[in-house]
């Protein structure tokens, strides 16, 4: 058998690690561990210099295992694996030890014990590394068709974008018409273009693309499979179902408006929502003979909905401009907490509204306005005085909120939501339109309230991301899946019911019922392996002997 030759790279991460741990002690200790033939300290192992040191060491010292003790696999595992591969070493002979998140950042005040813990973790990593086996990525074919959930501006935009690239699209819309929220809106700021113009333009494009299949009145009720081979069941109100196959899914299911009825005596006549004002403003004959008072942050930025509705301030400003331009004699008041006019175009509109004579009155959350039958009473903390403003129309800025069945959709697609029930992307900053599950993407207000502009570029971004597996016709899946020994399996089905990824099914074989693992769907979480009472399932990259060696090393010192 080949001699095991392990290289250990200890990262300083600038001072993130080196500032709190004795890195040279750790490196020196690592060099005394069994099978370790090379150790090196790097300022940043992830830098190009650090990477080339790994590659050089593999070649020069004939390393056949690499251990990097640095940060988290989430940031740099792919990088270090690739470095191994480029130097001719199988990437699965690499082991990551996290001495930053697990040690230096959490034991900042105890250098000695932190250093000792880092030694322990490296000893464990080295023990596991010795038993690692080479593996190959698994290639899974991808059906070059996409399912898009939601026929609003986001869903339609990504459908058009994908169809233009030659991919077949299945667009599932729960209502009986396409167009979504934009159908109800009047004018879109900052360009002050017609909302209907925008959506009709996109609809026209969509209707002229034969690759787009539309399922109106349908919603998803079940989903099987994984990236490359999804099978979705959609159902209409008559409980008729259809089955759609696709390689990827884009979620663009949008939001609903918060029910305004608990707030400020909403009545739908002279106390309405900003959203309803949109419809009124598209009506030529609208007559308003007295003041219009707009109240911001209605049902948002409170204990019930902590978030900011994001688009309501600009909607109010836009509508105040439209009102003033329609009839300068109308006095418009915007009662606000913080005016959210971010970016350069919006600030210009805010100034325009002010120049047109729109009054802005600040209030604090502790002293909200009161709406009586004929006046809005409001205390302005900035002016330290109370206003009593008669109104002919009071307009409430209620936020968009997630659909009531967002949880159900989340369960069907197996993608997470946040505490507000907005869908939760893979990474808030760096992967804003991906879900952690491969092959499912998110755009539009289902992710977070957004403007038309944002919905469209997010949709384009989803289409771009989705085009990669669709265009390649295949994806690589990490070979960390579970493995079944069919001779031992009794077909009890325990693993089938426990698998959170629907990656195991029961099949009839010559030898009776047996579990079958759908490798492309398996995430290697280990639930099946640890619960199988027959020990018929092993995890291919986390084998019992590898983990046991790690545990034994933990207590060895």
């Amino acid at each position: 058998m080949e001699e095991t030759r392990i290289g250990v790279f200890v990262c300083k991460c600038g001072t993130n690690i080196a500032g709190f741990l004795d890195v040279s002690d750790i490196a020196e200790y690592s060099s005394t561990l069994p099978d370790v033939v090379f150790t090196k300290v790097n300022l940043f192992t992830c830098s190009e210099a650090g990477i080339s040191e790994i590659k050089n060491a593999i070649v020069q010292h004939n390393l056949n295992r690499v251990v990097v003790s640095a940060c988290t696999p989430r940031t740099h595992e792919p990088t270090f694996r690739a470095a191994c591969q480029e130097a001719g070493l199988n990437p699965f002979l690499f082991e990551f030890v996290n001495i930053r998140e697990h040690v230096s950042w959490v034991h900042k005040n105890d250098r000695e014990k932190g250093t000792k813990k880092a030694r322990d973790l490296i000893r464990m990593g080295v023990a596991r590394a010795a038993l690692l086996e080479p593996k190959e990525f698994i290639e899974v074919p991808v059906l070059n068709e996409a399912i898009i959930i939601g026929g609003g501006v986001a869903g339609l935009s990504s459908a058009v974008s994908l169809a233009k690239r030659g991919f077949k699209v299945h667009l599932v819309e729960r209502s009986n018409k396409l167009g979504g929220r934009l159908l109800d809106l009047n004018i879109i700021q900052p360009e002050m273009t017609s909302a209907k113009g925008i959506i009709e333009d996109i609809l026209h494009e969509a209707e002229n693309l034969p690759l787009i299949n539309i399922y109106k009145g349908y919603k998803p009720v079940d989903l099987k499979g994984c990236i490359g081979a999804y099978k979705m069941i959609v159902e209409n109100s008559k409980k008729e179902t259809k089955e759609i196959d696709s390689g990827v899914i884009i979620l663009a299911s949008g939001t609903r408006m918060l029910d305004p009825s608990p707030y400020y005596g909403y009545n739908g006549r002279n106390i309405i929502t900003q959203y309803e004002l949109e419809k009124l403003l598209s009506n030529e004959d609208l007559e308003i003979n007295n003041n219009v008072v707009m109240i911001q942050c209605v049902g948002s930025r409170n204990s019930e909905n902590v978030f900011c509705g994001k688009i309501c301030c600009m909607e109010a400003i836009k509508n105040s401009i439209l009102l003033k331009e329609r009839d300068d004699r109308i006095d418009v008041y915007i009662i606000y907490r913080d005016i959210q006019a971010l970016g350069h175009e919006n600030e210009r509109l805010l100034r325009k509204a002010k120049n047109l004579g729109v009054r802005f009155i600040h209030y604090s959350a502790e002293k909200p306005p009161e709406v009586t039958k004929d006046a809005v009473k409001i205390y302005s903390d900035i002016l330290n005085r109370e206003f009593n403003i008669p109104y002919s129309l009071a307009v409430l800025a209620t936020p968009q909120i997630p659909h009531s069945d967002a949880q159900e959709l989340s369960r069907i697609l197996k993608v997470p939501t946040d505490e507000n029930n907005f869908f939760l992307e893979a990474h808030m900053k760096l992967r804003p339109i991906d879900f952690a599950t491969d092959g499912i993407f998110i755009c539009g207000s289902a992710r977070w309230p957004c403007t038309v502009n944002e919905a469209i570029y997010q949709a384009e971004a989803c289409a771009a991301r989705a085009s990669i597996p669709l265009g390649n016709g295949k994806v690589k899946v990490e070979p960390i899946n579970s493995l079944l020994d069919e001779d031992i399996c009794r077909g009890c089905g325990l693993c089938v019911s426990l698998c959170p990824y629907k990656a195991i099914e029961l099949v009839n074989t010559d030898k009776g019922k047996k579990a079958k693992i759908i490798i492309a769907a398996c995430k290697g979480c280990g639930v099946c392996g640890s619960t199988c009472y027959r020990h018929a399932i092993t995890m291919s990259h986390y084998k019992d002997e590898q983990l046991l060696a790690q545990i034994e090393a933990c207590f060895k010192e």
Partner: protein
Amino acid sequence: MLDVGRHPMIDILAYSELESVEGESSSFKATIRKKSRYVNASICNACGDCVAKCPVKVKNEFDMNFGVRKAIYQYFPQGIPSIMTIDGTKCLKITQNKCGICSKACVKGAIDYEMKDETVEIEVASIIIATGFDMLPVSHLTQYGYGKIKNVITGLEYERLINATGPTEGHLYRPSDKKLAHKVAYLQCIGSRDQNNCAYCSSVCCMYSIKDAMLAKEHDSEAEGYIFHTDFRNVGKWFQNYEKKGKNDYDIKYIRGRAAEITEDADNNPIVFYEDTKTQEIRQLTVDLVVLATATIPSKGFQELARKLRIETGKDGFVQTNSRLPVSTSRKGIFACGFCIAPADIPESVAQGAAAAGLAAQIALSRAG
């Protein structure tokens, strides 16, 4: 960044400027000037022997001029491509034909003082602009004393001080006496939302100031943060929670009021004069350090680039786009993403980047057939 650096399909032309673009969508011809590094990129492996020997010390721009670098340097340690560059305006050999030490220090022979700028022509199907932003210089806003009062710094300078790999290793040592700053004021809208400077909102400052104040507290339990704001603009995903967390868990004081003036006392402590608009009181607050959230502007040289590319820019100098085509410029085949369109935070920039890449790839692929 490293992923980009290692990707077999990405050719990086760093330290380069676009000279001109001809042709049209699907067949642009771009002329690019690769500025001379005086270091042979195919030989240098960034070992750093030359840097250790170089006698010339220059202010380090990456550290916002707090630290020093050498005349031969790498912009920052994780930078790609990982090679050294000689600053031709500071190098003694190049400016005065003296020294030449780095050439002797380099055992691989990568130094080439005679190296000239090189012009390359490349043919491309589409172009993406992602030139980012710069900060508005604010020394002309004399009421804030930036440049005169030592302990008044900008948000970007603060980023380097609080960064573990920065010039102070993450300790908030203030410029005047290198003492740890406990009490820090963060001032919003410095040059932004200001008719005489940048009329627009820079969009990212309210949130990064909360983050800055939280970081200070994490580094130093005695830290006190005061954020002076007008409208507090925290609208992105979970930003309201973050604002609350800053107040409740980090004890950051949010004060609604624009600072009017900053002076300093005998110990170089800045004094912030302001009106607390919620109580209508004129007050003053003496702090150890002031951090100015200065306005973000299109990056230096961007207007010239826009002219070369023949794309339209808007009133504030950003790329002109519209809601229907949010990452497309006025010229077919040229796309934009990130701050060059308008102030944007990370997830917005990332999503715009993917969108622009998709549209640009579509043109390239249809050209390839």
